[in-house]
């Protein structure tokens, strides 16, 4: 009996190893857990990452910021308002249902109902089904960013999400807080399906056998996602081999990861610009363009990137990061203390003045330290800054109330386009239209407003880029704000993970295409 058991166990063991040989398990440690399996519940980086693993968009961004066909194979502009998408054939959802034009229509309509996505999809009029694999997406006005927005359309299985669940609630209900069908059920076309989920503890993904993209080099068969909130713990988990991939990596631990023989560090320039706005309504000094320029000249943002950020950011002289339509190579970072002093002298403010500043202390990477560095840099042109820093929970109320003369804000463009920066950060604040909502500097230049609005409906992309570049140049000459840097995304991974091809500016690692050696 005992012998039989041993034989049986060894057979089982061998069988288990045999099946493991082809299996590649990826263990991922991220700073936060996606809040739901319903991609339309929250507009956040974490939810979009999940969408790329479980669903597939019509088109997606490549590393070069071009569009890559996914569920749409081709697209064509029919007129100023309409874009025709030709959908991929033979694609199946995780539930087994085939993917058709109906699902695209269902998804766009659901997006327009979602509290978080409603705003982004406001310009959209609707979806017209031409045949099973062709759809026309129309906008209310000519809209240049239609393709950018198509990266947000992750078709959901309309059949799977219709009807009522056992509580009598419609299956397609978007519920922020409380139970819903989509909260813990999914059916997408993506490379992974969710097989186990315990909110905040662990999510297990398994590769979808019927995944349409047979060309994808990805060979991950199972992925386990564990949220690890503490920076130091996450790094320790990677170094000890508990997880294979972590993000983000805190800058102070970059050297530790670089030194370790078993792991690699990857960084990728991101699109989040860190700026400080100078309130022209509160301070008459800031109305003088020479003073604003002097301040920008006095800020050694390259030094901040080198020391505080440990090189984990890209020095900025404008809002748009490289790759964006509006990125203007002429707007270079400028640090020149002599020139700053000369400008202050020209403005008659050689003796300087005292002003106040607020910054968050747990929102952006090293935000508090950057703010402190600003204080010492501006002291060199005799501007005394009284700085107060606070946690983000208190910060945004104070920011909106504009309690200080200088206020820090970081911004990532939702549309991955330059226009979005100007609309929120530098257009004249207007309560009615919502433009300039986060412009606490109260910088107001009618020409910038005119160009930003014109760029919204310009569908000729070349002309549009020229407009956006002009905006950057005006802002640069006006020193409308103090630019610091674009934060880099950072990833730590074991050496056998081929991470480089799957990361991008948006911070959406495409794990479906990840190769493990």
């Amino acid at each position, binding site marked *: 009996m005992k012998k039989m058991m041993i034989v049986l166990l060894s057979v089982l063991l061998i069988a288990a190893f045999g099946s493991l040989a082809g299996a590649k398990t990826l263990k991922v440690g991220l700073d936060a857990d996606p809040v739901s399996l319903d991609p339309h519940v929250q507009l956040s980086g974490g939810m979009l990452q999940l969408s790329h693993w479980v669903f597939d968009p019509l088109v997606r961004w490549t590393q070069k910021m071009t569009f890559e066909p996914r569920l749409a194979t081709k697209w064509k502009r029919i007129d100023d308002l309409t874009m025709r998408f030709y959908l991929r054939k033979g694609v199946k959802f995780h539930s087994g249902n085939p993917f058709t034009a109906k699902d695209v229509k269902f998804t766009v309509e659901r997006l327009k109902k979602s509290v978080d996505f409603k705003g982004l999809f406001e310009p959209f009029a609707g979806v017209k089904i031409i045949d099973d694999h062709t759809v026309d997406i129309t906008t209310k006005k000519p809209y240049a960013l239609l393709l950018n927005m198509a990266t947000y359309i992750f078709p959901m299985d309309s059949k799977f999400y219709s009807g009522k669940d056992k509580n009598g609630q419609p299956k397609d209900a978007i519920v922020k807080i409380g139970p819903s069908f989509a909260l813990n059920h999914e059916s997408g076309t993506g490379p992974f399906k969710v097989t186990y989920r315990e909110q905040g503890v662990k999510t297990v993904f398994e590769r979808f056998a019927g995944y349409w993209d047979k060309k994808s080099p990805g060979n991950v068969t199972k992925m386990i996602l564990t949220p690890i909130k503490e920076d130091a713990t996450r790094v320790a988990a990677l170094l000890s081999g508990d997880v294979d991939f972590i993000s983000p990596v805190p800058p102070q*631990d970059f050297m530790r990861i670089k030194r370790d023989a078993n792991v690699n560090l990857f960084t990728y320039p991101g699109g989040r610009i860190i700026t400080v706005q100078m309130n022209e309504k509160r301070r008459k000094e800031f109305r003088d363009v020479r003073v604003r320029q002097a301040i920008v000249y006095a800020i050694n943002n390259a030094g901040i990137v*080198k*020391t505080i950020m440990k090189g984990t950011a890209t020095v900025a002289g404008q809002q748009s990061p490289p790759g964006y339509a509006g990125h203007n190579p002429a707007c270079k970072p400028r640090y020149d203390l002599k020139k700053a002093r000369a400008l202050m002298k020209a403005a008659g403010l050689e003796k300087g003045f*005292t002003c106040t500043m607020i910054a968050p202390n747990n929102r952006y990477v090293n935000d508090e330290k950057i703010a402190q560095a600003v204080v*010492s840099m*501006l002291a060199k042109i005799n501007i005394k800054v009284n*700085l*107060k820093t606070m946690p983000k929970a208190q910060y945004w109320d104070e920011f909106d109330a504009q309690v200080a003369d200088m206020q820090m804000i970081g911004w990532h463009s939702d549309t991955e386009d330059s226009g979005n920066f100007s609309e929120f950060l530098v257009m004249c604040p207007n309560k009615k239209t919502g433009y300039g909502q986060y412009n606490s500097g109260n910088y107001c230049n009618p020409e910038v407003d005119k160009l930003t609005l014109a760029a919204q409906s310009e569908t000729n992309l070349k002309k549009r880029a020229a407009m956006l570049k002009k905006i950057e140049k005006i802002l640069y000459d006006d020193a409308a704000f103090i630019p610091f840097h674009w934060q880099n995304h950072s990833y730590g991974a074991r050496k056998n993970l081929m991470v480089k091809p799957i990361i991008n500016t948006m911070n959406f690692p495409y794990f479906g295409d990840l190769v493990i050696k």
Partner: protein
Amino acid sequence: MKATWQRFKSSYLLYSFRRDKVAMASFAVLVLLILTGLAAPLVSPYNPYDPSSIDIMNSELPPAWQDAGSRAFLLGTDVQGRDMVSTMIYGLRLSILIGCGAVTLQALIGIFIGLIAGYIGGKVDALLMRLADIQLSFPYLMVAIFISAIFQVAFGIGRYAELAVPLLIVIIGLSEWPVYARTIRASVIGEKNKEYVEAARVIGLNRRLIMVRHILPNTITSVLVISTIQVANAVMSEAALSFLGLGMPVTKPSLGSLIRSGFEYIFSGSWWITIFPGILLVIFVLVINLLGDWLRDVLNPKLYKGA
């Protein structure tokens, strides 16, 4: 004046101090630390609170004896490029000021309330002790948020930097007085029915005199012991408040906030940002504790009679 000096010279206090080496050493270190703190602008090589003297490019330099270290900065620099030696001296000054100030305030309020509650008793006692309960049930953070919100509305962010020190003394002082009041009250109740108090009452001394001259000296030992702990507590509370944006401005780090800001660098190799201020704080708290211990033994009338 001369008579007082004479009395001090022949007192038991000085006598026992001169025989206790630990007490002498602690006292010397404490005096040294306080003097350094007070004379910070004269002693320290740089002024870390003057932002124009800081260069970000000097950030995170290791102590001078290490390879990348610079002679200009003996114990290295922090992440902003501030000289550690100077920052520690200025931080120590702030910590002494806030710690001792807050403890003095706590002790004054606590002793006053504790004496009255314990000696008079009855309804007064019940009322004062419930007040203490209420105060204890508020975490000091809440008191701090409340007071600093009022301050900020009243004075604006600009003046905040100047008012931070008195504000912190008031916040920490106000939130911890029940610790003293409770202890004093307990010892007063223990003392007030003893023969010497009865005797004092019989010869017709008034209540205030009995409380202050007769009972208080017999309860003071516990005050000294608590004080040593409370100074350390106050320094910690200040560091916590500074992190929340309710304490010292980040451009004027105290010893506590310096240690806290160094935590995240300790694994990454920049150990000096947190270790040196940590050692200084430990020494500071330790000598206060040792002196407190010695003082308790000396002032304890029971031990004195036994000796």
